[in-house]
């Protein structure tokens, strides 16, 4: 069992990791065919991950309903929503539109999914304002620079600001293209090195936390 849970995944990870690292440097059609096939396997596995997510969600909320923990009514609502959407989706054969006419699935998508997601995202506009009001204070030199550049960019990125303070557009462009690019590049290099280092550790079997067990080996 240990072999199946620990050793075998590590062996597979090592072989596939090394093979497809080298594949990047091999232009031969055999190598291209290999990556095409593996890409197809990965698509299939990604599809299964959807089912896993769904199954785990069903299981967690089933336990909540069974034990009648506080708030278990919301788990019932979740079940109703999920099963209802799945049933309607199957009934409409997964189509949101047929010959230009909206299906029931399309109706549910357009009038529940879209407004609900849009609403959650739109709360950000209000929260940004209250966070900015609380946080953008010139407490120190660095905070003053942050405040000034935030005000200039906020003006330079909208027509009203460009109209009232024409130079704000040019300064904004300079801030975005020069200062912002430089800093983002530095962060990107650092983060990318981290990602490369993690990938190497996973391929070489040094990092095993993704298997769900202990850390340092």
């Amino acid at each position: 069992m240990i072999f199946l849970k620990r050793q075998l995944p590590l062996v597979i990870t090592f072989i596939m990791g090394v093979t497809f690292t080298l594949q990047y440097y091999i232009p031969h059609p055999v190598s291209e065919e290999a990556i095409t096939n593996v890409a197809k396997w990965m698509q299939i596995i990604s599809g299964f991950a959807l089912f896993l997510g769904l199954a785990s969600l069903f299981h967690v909320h089933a336990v909540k309903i069974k034990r009648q923990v506080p708030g278990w009514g919301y788990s019932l609502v979740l079940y109703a929503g999920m099963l209802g959407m799945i049933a309607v989706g199957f009934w409409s054969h997964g189509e949101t539109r047929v010959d230009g006419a909206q299906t029931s699935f399309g109706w549910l998508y357009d009038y529940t999914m879209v407004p609900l997601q849009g609403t959650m995202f739109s709360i950000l506009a209000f929260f940004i304002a209250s966070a900015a009001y609380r946080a953008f204070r010139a407490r120190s030199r660095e905070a003053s620079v942050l405040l000034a550049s935030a005000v200039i960019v906020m003006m330079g990125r909208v027509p009203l600001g460009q109209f009232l303070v024409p130079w704000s557009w040019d300064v904004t462009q300079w801030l975005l293209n020069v200062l912002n690019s430089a800093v983002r590049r530095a962060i990107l290099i650092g983060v990318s090195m981290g990602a490369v280092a993690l990938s190497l550790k996973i391929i070489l079997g040094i990092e095993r936390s993704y298997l769900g067990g202990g850390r340092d080996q």
Partner: protein
Amino acid sequence: MNVVAFLCLLFFSGVAFAAPPSLAPPEGFRVLDTPNDTGKSLSLVWKASPSDSKNRSIQVWAAESPHAAFKKVAEFPSNTRYVKAGDFPWWAQPAGKGEHYVKLSSSQAFPIEDGKSYAVKLLVRDGEQEAWSEIAEGRPAPNFFNTAQVNNLVFVLAFTGVLLASIAAARRNPHIYLRRIAGLDAVEEAIGRSTEMGRPILYLTGAGDMSEVPTIAATVILGEVAKKVAHYDTSLKVPHRDPIVMAVCQEIVKEAYVEAGRPDAYKEDSNFFITSDQFSYTAAVDGIMLREKPAANFFMGSYFAESLLLTETGASTGAIQIAGTDSDHQLPFFVTTCDYTLIGEELYAASAYLSREPVLVGTLRGQDFGKAFIMSVLVLGTALATIGVVAGTENFDYVLDFFKDFK
């Protein structure tokens, strides 16, 4: 006078009726298998001529053999398709700088198969004049190694070596110097505050799964936080978006309580799964914050649009908030709404600093070497490129090419 007039007439008529200079065919024309490719293509190379111009055109004619019927496959002005600096590395260039280079790939009009020989010739046309080149033959074949990317492979192997050496060194001595991270002092303060107020601590591990660096760092920091929480007997709540991360965190928190000598205080349901959907999870966590009013909120890992929704709600409840993320697009929101923010690699460093795990410490060290190397190359490369331009020399390209990405 009549003789002079006659001679002038003779001269100018000679000039008027003299045959124009004949058009020279392309010089040094050759056909090769395109290097570093998947096959089914040929490379055509010939020397540049001083008379190349936009009014003069080049036609490429190809056939399956020198005696078969030729077919026109391409046409372009003669003053185009030059090899420029940066097209090929010096160690893998099919044509020199300034020469003409054209890649002839297989197409519906002229299919090319590997292993078969093809004959190609060029036609130069300038007004009414034409000149054919010699017929050259080439045989396409796929290549097993892209020599243009040998520099890339060398750097990957070198970085791997440095990383493994750093990890080995850290295993021998895990107490390598790591700069103290400011936000870490606040962790103790936050836990103490929660204990005094008798309110729980909320810890989030972000949107990523266990194969992402920030999530791994978040779980390590959770272990350290859990140890302190166990010691102070404070309540800990860790809502999750990913079942595997939840499983890992459950073990980490349990181990932390055992190490702190308080296995009895461990609660199985301190780690719980909500949903993997972004905004549903956010709404649920916001609800927990508003109802249970935790005294301290930790936001560690990778985040997306939900970051501000979480932190602003937490700020409205008066909690002390500590964040750590490498999601640079969310950093402004964390910085404005949280009391302390670990930016980018400070998160990885914090996890290494707290746990002193040799793998984490060694990895950090290896990455630092990598960054030091990149910074040195940036300074050196900029200097060499500038000197090269000022001095008008291309000799530094031999060094600079090594750091470029060629396909």
